[in-house]
């Protein structure tokens, strides 16, 4: 994957990520498995895009390609890079990915320290995001002392504090209980509204996609490809349960489910 360093003439609403004919084939011994095939997508700068698909449809593979953790087999991804010196992507993983051997503070500081950012600036940035994520009381705790929700908050804070151009989120709240999920979704939106970064968010939950996204892309079953897309035009700032009470939310949710259903039913 090559990030072409063209600056964006269209200002902050230009195309940030252009995915063309992307495919990924995994080989398992003698046989091969097509994880994703012919994925075409454009993500605009500052857009919050949600990709919804049945489990095993290759959405994580797509995200891992964007994170440069996998190399595509076909097609390409072109990313408009604003600052070649700044980090391009930070990924928030589904499972616990914060380092058990570091305190919350050191976890959040990880990306900055790797880049040798000056100590006082690291401290300022880390304090800011620890506060935003509601982690002040746990700043010096180790992950084993934290609840699942607190661990994912740390993970979110770690990704944001690194200040990447694009945030990649792989079902970060899937393992949380309903209440914590709603809470973290709202907090994510609050943190995001401060920075307005481009976000690619993967989920199997239609409701979550509707709550968070500007646009929803539905993926087919494996080999995953993009099937349809929906604009989500609920005003921001959004509150999870206010939004869910809106009849338009229910209608859109049903429309997407009707489409997704065919992909889930074997």
């Amino acid at each position: 994957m090559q990030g072409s360093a063209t600056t964006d003439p269209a200002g902050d609403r230009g195309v940030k990520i252009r995915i063309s004919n992307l495919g990924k084939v995994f080989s398992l011994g003698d046989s091969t498995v097509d994880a994703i095939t012919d994925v075409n997508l454009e993500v605009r700068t500052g857009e919050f895009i949600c990709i919804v698909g049945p489990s095993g449809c290759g959405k994580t593979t797509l995200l891992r390609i964007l994170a440069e953790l996998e190399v595509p087999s076909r097609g390409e991804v072109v990313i408009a890079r604003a600052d070649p010196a700044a980090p391009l992507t930070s990924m928030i993983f589904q499972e616990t990915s914060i380092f058990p051997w570091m305190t919350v503070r050191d976890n959040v500081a990880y990306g900055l320290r790797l880049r040798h950012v000056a100590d006082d600036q690291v401290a300022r940035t880390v304090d800011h995001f620890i506060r935003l994520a509601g982690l002040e009381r746990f700043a010096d705790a180790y992950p084993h002392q934290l609840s699942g929700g607190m661990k994912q908050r740390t993970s979110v804070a770690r990704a944001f504090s690194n200040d990447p151009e694009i945030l990649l989120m792989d079902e970060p709240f899937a393992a949380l209980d309903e209440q914590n999920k709603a809470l973290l979704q709202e907090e994510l939106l609050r943190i995001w509204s401060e920075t307005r970064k481009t976000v690619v968010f993967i989920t199997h939950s239609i409701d979550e996609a509707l709550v968070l996204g500007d646009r929803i892309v539905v993926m087919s079953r494996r080999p995953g490809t993009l099937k349809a897309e929906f604009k989500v035009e609920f005003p921001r700032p959004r509150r999870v349960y206010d939004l869910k009470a809106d009849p338009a939310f229910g209608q859109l949710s049903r429309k997407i489910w009707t489409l997704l259903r065919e992909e889930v039913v074997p």
Partner: protein
Amino acid sequence: MTVTAAGVVRITAERKERASLALRLVRSEIFAAIASPVLILATWELLVGVGLLDSRFFPAPSSVVIALFDLIQSGQLFVDIGWTVLRVVIGTLLGAIPGLVFGVLLGLSQIARAFVLPAINALYPIPKIAMFPLVMMIFGIGETSKWIIVAIAVFFQMFFSTLAGVVNIEKIYLDVASNFKASRWQTYRTIAVPGALPFIFTGLQLGLGMALIVVIIAENFGTQVGIGYLIWRSWQVFEVRDMYVGLVVVAALGYGFQLLLQQVQRRIIPWKAQGGT
């Protein structure tokens, strides 16, 4: 718990009667733990006293204590302990550091593993002390050969433990490092070493155990000091009580090393302190 006539079950707090101090002491675990060795030593003393146990091989514990005090008073015991500890410490450092480095390097590189591991696997089954004559041929019978043989013993424990620790690090942590664009060196420093630390400590623990075994045997050769020398010389001159003193001191040394390691471990691996991952 009482059941009243109407069939109501009432669950109330238990009222515990406080046992007397003496009774609680006898029941306590500490007491039980101390009681068994005391009982064994007392029986031993008694059996030697009535002539049922041969004091040429099993001298009365009291006579061993007297021998211990004699060796302390002459100052010789501390000289012996000092030399043995020094040999263990130097040898352990010489073996543990390369073991750690190789373990981390090979842990993160499959190709390096494929290249180096067969050679190390071929050497591993050799009892380390069997290499001692060769080591003495190369390095002479002085201190160096003792450091080297201890280092060899420690190296293997440290290497295999570190390797296992690094290989067992969950892949997601390496993915995170890669996504954050950590360099190779940064990955070693921030992921491989801290992630493998619990295993590394196990390696150090096993390594120190091996070091003590090896040093005691090695001290039979080319030296006039050390706890091993004390034991071997006692055998030659049939001074069995001194030999027992040597055994007691070796046991105490081994125990002391483990205690020290546990303290260091608690400092260095705080995320392990209360259980957890």
